């Protein structure tokens, strides 16, 4: 089973040379720490920065330079700042190659829910609806089951949707799943996790073809 860092490391393997990538809050933010050797990627943050770098050294934080999670950050050579309309122009205009974000639920048709639990929690969608409606490639980082042990990988989302038919791939603590026109296809197992365990933890049907390889995580 993977921890959050493991999920981030596995998703980092999906990064390709010359990709512009938007990272959501939470596990996706960690992906930036595990960029594969030998490739160049640039991170976009929707609050208005391209070429985001690591956190600043202590004492060098600048309140005017943050990411979309409101964390203090630095910029790398070649970085740029811009306003929110231009930022979402980059996103809607599909200039950003890959979006990695978290979810509360994903359905087998690629629907995603991550912004509201009616009557209980309303944080808002932030930029997630714009991102999922426009990005060509969307990978979700999430836990396979909730704290009660119930599956968050569903036939149909129960929570208000963030976007429809948009998720392409999911990486959880248990598995890598691909969203296909026929439903979820099990691609990989987390280290030490059996196919049976994944089936038992997934409400949706899984397409399982042949032996399912174990993820390779450094």
């Amino acid at each position, binding site marked *: 089973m993977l921890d959050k860092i493991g999920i981030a490391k596995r998703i980092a393997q999906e990064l390709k040379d010359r990709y512009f990538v938007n990272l959501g809050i939470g596990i996706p933010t960690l992906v930036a720490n595990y960029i594969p050797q030998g490739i160049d990627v640039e991170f976009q943050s929707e*609050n208005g920065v391209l070429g985001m770098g690591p956190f600043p050294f202590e004492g060098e934080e600048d*309140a005017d*330079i943050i990411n979309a999670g409101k964390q203090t*950050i630095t910029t790398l050579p070649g970085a740029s700042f811009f306003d929110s309309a231009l930022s979402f122009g980059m996103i809607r205009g599909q200039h950003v190659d890959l979006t990695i974000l978290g979810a509360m639920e994903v359905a087998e048709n690629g629907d995603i829910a991550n912004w509201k639990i009616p009557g209980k929690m*309303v944080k*808002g969608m932030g930029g*997630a609806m714009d991102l999922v*409606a426009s990005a060509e490639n969307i990978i979700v980082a999430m836990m396979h089951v909730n704290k009660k042990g119930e599956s968050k990988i569903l036939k149909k989302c129960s929570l208000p949707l963030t976007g429809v038919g948009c998720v392409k791939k999911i990486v959880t603590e248990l598995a890598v799943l691909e969203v296909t026109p026929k439903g979820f296809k099990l691609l990989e197992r987390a280290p030490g996790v059996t196919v049976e365990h994944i089936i038992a933890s997934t409400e949706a049907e899984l397409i399982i073809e042949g032996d399912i390889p174990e993820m390779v995580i450094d």
Partner: protein
Amino acid sequence: MINKKVNSVQEALQGVENGMTIMLGGFGLCGIPENSIAELVKKETNNLTCISNNAGVDDFGLGLLLQKKQIKKMVSSYVGENAEFERQMLSGELDVELIPQGTLAERCRSAQAGIPAFYTPAGYGTEVAEGKEVREFNGKMHIMEHAFNADFAIVKAWKGDTAGNLIFKGTARNFNPCMAGAAKITVAEVEELVEAGTLDPNQIHIPGIFVQRIFQGELYEKRIEQRTVRQK
């Protein structure tokens, strides 16, 4: 040169009245018009509709106006950092319109640019699309969104000049340039106000035509919401 300089935040916010719709720049606590928010608290202007990406935190930013119950309605994209906000919203005291962040930015920009409405794919198939016109373009579904109609836009810039020209710094830019000129009156507060002619015209982010009143703010706290660092 048309002089936009006013001498105080009080003068800048003259005409802001109960029940008005006000746009305020900022992302989280980054790039918010601190002086103007403090003045609105002091003025006790109430029944406000505030258009701002976030709602501050409990004791800073727009959270200060929420504490005093001066806000009737919030139009935002993300409000997760404010417990008092969530309480007022879930209890029904506060009317809230949550809209996708890119749509929020574009509704500001449209108001600034004289575009009454536009189509975006954001929110299609979700509750955000309820009651809105849906149209297919190039095989993809879109919903129609309208430009905002606000009484005041209050923006914060790093530097400005007496002609109202603005330069922003870092990610404190965010919604501020989109809101300048997007309301009947735009007020800009800046950290440093200089005479017209001092700033390089090549470096201006927002031309003074979008700004009616400009003043130099004081004592910027610039609170950091999430201080994240790494070790040397």
